[in-house]
């Protein structure tokens, strides 16, 4: 007898997204239960305030409820697709406010890349992408790497980055630009 195939996390989420696109609220609930803490993690980190993050979380899931059909596997892991929605929602909200940088920002540590060890299942699904990205980031000059990671995780603009890194705006812009170009070269090599 053939062993039934138990789908991976990614397949399950993709199926739940399909059912969500067809307005099945139970599937949507299961999708929410399985993923909300990850989207919330993005929003809390970037927006800094729990209440704002929870409000934004609702916005994100409403968007997913209404746009689930636009997910397709070519867009990557369903959770990554959903977390990206959260990240851009946070960025939009940050850009709508005046000042984002605060004094205690200095004390916020960035994630350590080598700690982002994926589970074996993720590893199989992403084909070692994390290691490639990690290697390419580690190969960058320190200030370029730091500028990219701060921008990615904290959602700083160029001027905010400059202020956080106590460096001239032009210098920081060029760190970002050169960092991105080298990263691309490395990832496509």
């Amino acid at each position, binding site marked *: 007898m053939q062993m039934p195939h138990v789908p991976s996390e990614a397949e399950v989420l993709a199926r739940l997204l399909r059912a969500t696109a067809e307005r099945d609220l139970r599937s949507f609930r299961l999708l929410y239960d399985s993923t909300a803490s990850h989207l919330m993690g993005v929003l809390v*980190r970037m927006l800094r305030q729990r209440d704002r993050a929870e409000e934004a979380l609702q916005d994100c899931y409403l968007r997913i409820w209404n746009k689930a059909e636009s997910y397709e596997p070519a867009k990557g892991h369903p959770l*990554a697709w959903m977390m990206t929605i959260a990240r851009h929602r946070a960025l939009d909200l940050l850009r709508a406010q005046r000042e984002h940088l605060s004094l205690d920002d200095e004390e916020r540590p960035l994630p350590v890349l080598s700690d982002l060890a994926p589970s074996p299942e993720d590893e199989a699904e992403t084909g070692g992408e994390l290691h490639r990205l990690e290697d390419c980031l580690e190969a960058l000059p320190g200030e370029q790497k730091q500028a990219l990671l701060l921008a990615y995780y904290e959602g700083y603009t160029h001027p905010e980055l400059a202020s956080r890194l106590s460096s001239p705006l032009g210098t920081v812009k060029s760190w970002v630009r050169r960092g991105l170009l080298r*990263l691309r070269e490395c990832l496509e090599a």
Partner: protein
Amino acid sequence: MSRLSAPARDYLAAVYVLGVLAAPARRAVQQRMQRDPEWQALVQHWEQYFHPLLAGYEPVLPAGEVWTSLARRANEPPPKLARPKPDPEAMLAPRRGKAVAADPANDPVAPPAVAGRRGVSPLWRAWAIAASLLAVVSTGAVLQPQHFPFLSRPGVVAETPALYLGALAVDGGRWLVRGAAGGESVYVSVEERPRVQRNRAAELWWIGSDGTPRSMGLLPTEGEAQLMLAQALPDEAPVFAVSMEPRGGSPTGLPTGPVVSTFRAIVQR
């Protein structure tokens, strides 16, 4: 495509994804994405470069009220939902019927106030509250396949076995279960911290149409686990149930302690 050179477009897409753009430039990119699939592809490309970094965000549990409020908003009729901005992504995607949700009398996700008046337990609430086995059986009618449009989608041939999904909530947390029809194992992941008394163990069961509980093994209290089943999952959606048993599991092969959570499996094909 815009007048920008290819490297300039690529750079703009990259800094958009990275997030450093100020509001006006950010909006400009979003507008281009709405109009132009090439821009979407460019941005998508950069998003995927950075996807692995998403693992660096530490998960944070949202408050329980978020779902309650979300479920209410998801049920709200237009204006908000029916007034989408022109969205190339949505236009590219196939349109899907929404007839089931549109008919309130047939709506499994009716808002609580309306459902309360009709005296019917709304599905979303049945989900949120760990119902007793009896309650699940008595609301079984609202779980019939006509409420799952994806089950009756024309032209879909069941080549792969149906997938059963369940969420078993207890005080403090829940277990998410997934397994295939005919499958001899299931995967369980733990959300939050389900409360299990000291010297007790939470045991998972499936109950088929004959009403006999079959043990699926002891549930983990954290992380993920694969449970090997003594009896393969049935071809019809089972009810999952959790009972509290002595450490080591039920001594009799049937639940001996209180059933603390049940869930009729969601079927996905």
